[in-house]
């Protein structure tokens, strides 16, 4: 089943190329994000209409929109609270989404299925790094220090975990999937123990910050935090599309990719670096937001085929839209309190994914 088959017969595209199938999908996802963002920005304790959002943004650049009265309160809420959240929401999902798509492609072909495992790996490592910063940075430090250190530490953690697993499993002449998984489990356990230890020594206030960070939230989004993560996210964003064609070839297998002219070792090094960079930065800004990363690339693949040139940008767009939507839910359903967004995504996402899994032939998932 593909999204195209949901359309009435005559509207179904006939093309056998993902690119042709995927282009309308990408356009639709772009529109979706463009619609979701102003709607999510406007809803909340202080209501702001799309026109008012426009007026406020315009004012920041010294322009005024005639006939659109804007309350100072609205302006403050939008600029200080909702815009950064929205921006982080987009950026974060963007990263993780795309990164996951790449990650799955990068794993040696037989291990492709274990992409989820790698994702966990990166996340857990990043988590450890983040824990370390949250616990170790003295409470009185200026917030910009924390904002700057978190992405670095999370990146360091995820990179370390990834390289460790890769090295451990890659010692044999052939990287065996079983070895890879076992090494991953061991490193995961070790990182888990590390984060556990840090939680143990943390003060009550730190512990609370840790718990919320682990559950994931855009609530802590600030322009400063975004500024710390943005360079990492941008770098990965710019560098990753270039490897999409090579990733397609890599799906054939490592030897096959080499015979098709791909420098496989260099490609893998590059991907691991970029993925660690992206995941580390996004985890640092918003904590651990589960599930969206697992599902979104699969949805895109289901809709438009396995071509990474579609799967990567498609996952970014859809992931960003979903996260902005989930954040809207998270801060409105139990207002004025706020649910951790990780809970929202997993609660809503898991049943949907299982439903999809049941009704879809397994071949469409690769």
């Amino acid at each position: 089943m593909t999204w195209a088959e949901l359309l009435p017969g005559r509207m179904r595209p006939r093309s056998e190329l993902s690119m042709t199938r995927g282009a309308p999908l990408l356009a639709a996802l772009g529109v979706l994000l463009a619609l979701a963002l102003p709607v999510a920005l406007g809803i909340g304790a202080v209501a702001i209409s799309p026109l008012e959002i426009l007026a406020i943004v315009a004012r920041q650049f010294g322009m005024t929109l005639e006939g659109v009265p804007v309350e100072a309160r609205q302006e403050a809420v939008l600029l200080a609270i909702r815009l950064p959240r929205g921006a982080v929401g987009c950026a974060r999902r963007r990263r993780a989404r795309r990164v996951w798509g790449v990650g799955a492609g990068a794993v040696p072909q037989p291990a492709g299925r274990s992409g989820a495992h790698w994702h966990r790996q990166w996340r857990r490592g990043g988590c450890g790094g983040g824990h370390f910063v949250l616990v170790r940075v003295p409470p009185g430090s200026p917030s910009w220090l924390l904002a700057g250190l978190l992405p670095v530490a999370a990146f360091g953690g995820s990179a370390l975990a990834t390289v460790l697993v890769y090295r451990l499993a890659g010692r044999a002449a052939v990287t065996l999937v079983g070895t890879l998984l076992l090494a991953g489990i061991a490193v995961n356990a070790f990182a888990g123990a590390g984060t556990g230890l840090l939680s143990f020594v943390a003060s009550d206030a730190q512990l609370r910050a840790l718990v919320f960070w682990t559950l994931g939230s855009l609530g802590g989004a600030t322009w400063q935090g975004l500024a710390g993560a943005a360079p990492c996210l941008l770098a990965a964003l710019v560098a990753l599309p270039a490897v999409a064609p090579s990733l397609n070839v890599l799906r054939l297998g490592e030897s096959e990719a080499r015979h098709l002219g791909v420098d496989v070792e260099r490609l893998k090094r590059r991907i691991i670096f970029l993925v660690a960079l992206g995941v580390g930065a996004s985890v640092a800004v918003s904590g651990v937001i589960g599930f969206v990363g697992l599902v979104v690339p699969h949805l895109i693949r289901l809709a438009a085929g396995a071509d990474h040139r579609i799967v990567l940008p498609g996952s970014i767009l859809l992931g960003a839209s979903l996260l902005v939507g989930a954040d809207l839910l998270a801060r409105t359903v139990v207002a004025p309190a706020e649910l951790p967004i990780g809970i929202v995504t997993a609660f809503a996402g898991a049943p949907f994914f299982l439903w999809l899994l049941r009704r879809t032939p397994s071949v469409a998932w690769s």
Partner: protein
Amino acid sequence: MLAAYDLTVRSGSTTLLAGVSVAVPPGHVLAVVGPNGAGKSTLLRTLAGDITPASGDIVLEDRPLVAWRTPDLARIRAVVLQHGRFDSAFSALEVALLGRAPHAGRVSRTRDIAIAAAALHASDAAHLRSRSYPTLSAGEQQRVQLARALAQVWDVAPGAPRYLLLDEPTSALDLAHQHRTLQCLRDWALRGAGVLVVLHDLNLAAIYADRILVLRGGRAVACGPPAQVLTPAVVESTFDVRVALVDVPQLGHAMLVPHAPSGARSVSRAAPRGQ
């Protein structure tokens, strides 16, 4: 010319290949046959550069194989390994297009698609082009993989060499497609390609190969034109099976026919049981 001299390949304390020499000149089909575990795939993967030999030299077009840059190599030589686990939801056309990856940026996209389509046609998979690869049967997937290899070396500069290395490309094919595939390789050899193909069917090898290399236990037992190599004596000592070389006048060539082991149901069309 693709040639290897005195190749020895070891894995731990096991010797997989011992002093094997082989040559694949342009315009020739070389078939490699032998029992399971004889080292056929090891030889192919060593010639492809996947396995580094413990000793021996591999030369491609007068240059050592290791001196070739990966992208340059990919433009003149295609490799299809034994049936892989590739199961991405690409269409057959997209899989064939992956073979055009080494030429990205040098050839227009339209031309690439035309070549991929033509390659699918050549491997008799044109009707599968919009089918999702994982939904194809094993034999159909094998033909699409062949198309991918053909697309990779579809057009080279006039006079430039090209090589195809194929590991059991007929293992999942029906009778008609076994012959079609080998005829296709034969045609490519006629147009100047050097073809190395690992086969199990000795009669197929005898019909379509210019030369046959027989391996057993990592050693070359015999190498030469089919008529010289595939004698009952060589086949019996290599495969531990009694065979007869039967001339088939209707076909114009001889066939190797194995003796049924004692205990097997005897098949006699001339005198059905009960008469």
